[in-house]
């Protein structure tokens, strides 16, 4: 409970009084609150994993729950906190990364204005993310889901006088909103059939194919797909939007317009994995529907591959990282779906969660590193960098560790989680496995392309005055580096599994060889191409031709979206609607008035001012009435 409340208090405090009274102390207050929250989160997770086990199973513990908004009998929104292994894992991750980012921001954002707002938004985000993670109720999940979205919106648009930032924030919000529509309808469907919004109850009712609710839901269908599949697909769509899964990923690269610490927090480690978390949260239900699982697997794999390909071509450091994030999330996503018959059930789940955990460390480390670099060179473009290894040794080291980790080089964190995923995929779906391997290689390639471009390529130039950032920026990097190194050694499968029972995992050496080999090959290629400035990259890209251009242009997905929104929504629907409103509906109303008025003008001749006409009309009136009365109405 206090875990949740501290960031909230911090947000409220800063939000309301920040500008006038607390602008100087905003950072300290928020960081302090975050520090406390992290401590509590770790304590909470520790005590849960330490003592929460009954009969060998980690049961979900519902810390508290309030009725928030009842809809109808049984269906109501409740606000509460549930702690189960994934939630415990997530709160630690969220709090820890958030703390790191807070600390970093103390240094990074020093020179910016409106710091109170910045920290307020950060606090709001942390609060919402924690609320999301701890949701007991599917609607609560949705509520915090939206709140996370809006804090992301606010933070991306923090530099609100930069049109690009404003546009990016808008885009992020709208795309995720569009996905949320699916989520919402999915919720409606689930609520309608299961008559509950409570997550444990819901899982209980749908986690078994033989309950009345499951059968009702599987029985009802639309367009040949059962209601359950619809609901799950729609939920997944919501998750895909937030987690930047293809094709709803387009907001993520643009979201890099926000301050870099924010990208580290939200768009690398926490918010973007919300979709994965959501699928994991409903894993027992998802696992009931093989078709949906397949779809998730393929979309996840496709997303991982496409993002990896695009990442190879981008030149903006943060965008590369963004696509990398997208690719890794695709990884996690398909990992979740890997529960084929000849594999230990739940291995994919554990692997996905594990990767989420490890990824948080090295990806935020990468962003922090990138932040430090951008802070120094004041540019996001790779061209502006190069040869920085001497000027910022610590950053260099951290970045290197992170790259190794993400490339899956043992014994760093990424290796273990990736290994588990590939093991699960190998046993469940060979096609996905193949894609996984390819992506693994590509990852190593583009990460080291980045690494070499930044820190090598040019000769180090020491004479420039700027030096590496201060302690406040170094500390989180160091901490995260440690995390990136050791996180893989965590006995993850003992704690976080699909059904709460510990899972025995081991590294299958045979299966570990190909990815590592591929990764090393990728690194080698990258080193060859980018360690020194040379002609090769340009030639290679020329050789790839249209594929390169397509990847560079992000496969034209943005253009397609732009076409849909600008041409179809705005021009084909919005404009006609507005036009119709003014020129048809309103014109009809005005036309009524004009007709009346026109009639009034036409019949003026009746009142001719000539007395004899009057008498004649008078007589006409008598005649009409007589005819009516004597003949018509007889």
């Amino acid at each position, binding site marked *: 409970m206090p875990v949740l409340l501290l960031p909230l208090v911090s947000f409220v405090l800063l939000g309301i009084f920040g500008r006038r009274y607390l602008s100087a102390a905003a950072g300290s207050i928020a960081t302090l609150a975050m520090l406390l929250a992290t401590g509590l989160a770790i304590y909470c997770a520790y005590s849960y994993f330490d003592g929460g086990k009954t009969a060998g199973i980690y049961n979900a513990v519902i810390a508290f729950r309030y009725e928030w908004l009842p809809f109808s009998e049984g269906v109501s929104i409740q606000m509460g906190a549930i702690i189960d292994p994934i939630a415990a894992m997530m709160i630690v991750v969220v709090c820890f990364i958030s703390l790191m980012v807070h600390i970093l921001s103390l240094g990074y954002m020093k020179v910016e204005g409106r710091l109170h707002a910045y920290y307020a938004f950060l606090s709001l985000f942390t609060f919402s993310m924690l609320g999301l993670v701890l949701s007991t109720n599917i609607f609560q999940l949705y509520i915090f889901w939206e709140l996370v979205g809006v804090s992301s919106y606010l933070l991306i648009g923090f530099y609100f006088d930069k049109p690009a930032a404003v546009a990016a924030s808008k885009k992020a919000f709208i795309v995720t909103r569009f996905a949320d529509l699916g989520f919402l309808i999915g919720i409606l469907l689930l609520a309608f059939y299961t008559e509950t919004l409570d997550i444990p109850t819901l899982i209980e009712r749908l986690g078994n194919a033989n309950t009345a609710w499951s059968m009702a839901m599987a029985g009802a269908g639309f367009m040949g797909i059962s209601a359950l599949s619809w609901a799950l697909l729609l939920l997944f769509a919501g998750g895909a939007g937030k987690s930047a899964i293809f094709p709803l990923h387009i907001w993520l690269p643009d979201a890099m317009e926000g301050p870099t610490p924010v990208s580290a927090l939200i768009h690398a480690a926490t918010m973007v994995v919300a979709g994965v978390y959501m699928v994991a949260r409903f894993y027992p239900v998802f696992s009931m529907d093989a078709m949906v699982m397949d779809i998730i697997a393929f979309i996840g794999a496709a997303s991982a591959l496409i993002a990896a390909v695009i990442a190879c071509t981008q030149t903006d450091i943060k965008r590369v990282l963004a696509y990398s994030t997208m690719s890794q999330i695709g990884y996690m996503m398909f990992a979740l779906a890997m529960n084929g018959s000849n594999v230990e059930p739940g291995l994919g789940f554990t692997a996905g969660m594990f990767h989420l955990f490890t990824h948080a460390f090295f990806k935020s480390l990468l962003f922090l590193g990138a932040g430090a670099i951008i802070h120094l060179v004041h540019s996001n473009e790779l061209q502006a960098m190069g040869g920085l290894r001497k000027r910022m040794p610590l950053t260099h080291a951290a970045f290197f560790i992170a790259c190794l980790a993400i490339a899956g080089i043992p014994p760093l964190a990424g290796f273990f989680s990736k290994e588990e995923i590939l093991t699960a995929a190998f046993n469940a779906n060979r096609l996905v496995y193949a894609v996984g391997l390819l992506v693994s290689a590509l990852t190593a390639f583009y990460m080291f392309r980045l690494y070499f471009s930044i820190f090598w390529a040019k000769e180090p130039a020491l004479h420039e005055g700027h030096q590496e950032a201060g302690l406040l920026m170094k500390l989180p990097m160091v901490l995260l580096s440690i995390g990136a190194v050791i996180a893989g050694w965590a006995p993850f499968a003992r704690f976080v599994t699909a059904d709460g029972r510990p899972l025995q995992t081991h590294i299958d050496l045979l299966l570990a060889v190909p990815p590592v080999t591929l990764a090393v090959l990728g690194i080698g290629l990258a080193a060859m191409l980018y360690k020194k400035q040379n002609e090769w990259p340009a030639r290679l890209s020329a050789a790839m031709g249209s594929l390169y251009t397509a990847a560079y242009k992000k496969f034209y997905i943005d253009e397609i979206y732009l076409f849909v929104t600008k041409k179809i929504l705005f021009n084909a629907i919005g404009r006609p609607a507005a036009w119709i409103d003014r020129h048809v509906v309103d014109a009809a109303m005005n036309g009524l008035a004009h007709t009346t008025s026109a009639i009034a003008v036409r019949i003026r001749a009746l*009142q001719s001012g*000539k007395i004899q006409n009057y*008498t004649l009309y008078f*007589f006409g009136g008598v005649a009409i009435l007589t005819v009516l009365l004597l003949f018509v109405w007889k």
Partner: protein
Amino acid sequence: MIPLSHILVLSAALFFIGMYGLFTRRNMITMLMAVELILNSVNINFVAFNKYLYPDKLDGIFFTLFVITIAAAEAAVAIAIIINLYRSHHSIDAEDAGEMKF
């Protein structure tokens, strides 16, 4: 004896002749004359009804007497108005007195 209906038709004819005059005569005084014809036709009606159908009372006769009186009053006022109108308009053509319209 003449049937009642003949007298009534006569009066109706007179009525409509008067009406025609009222509709078409542009001189206001002649319009007034047409009105007198109309009133007279009604008088004939009353008298005829009284005489032919309801001779036990004198309702129709009295009605006629009062109509005649009122016709006189009406004519007097109308003529006064027409004379006044002539003063301001210098014409008693009904077509000329149509300033107010629409």
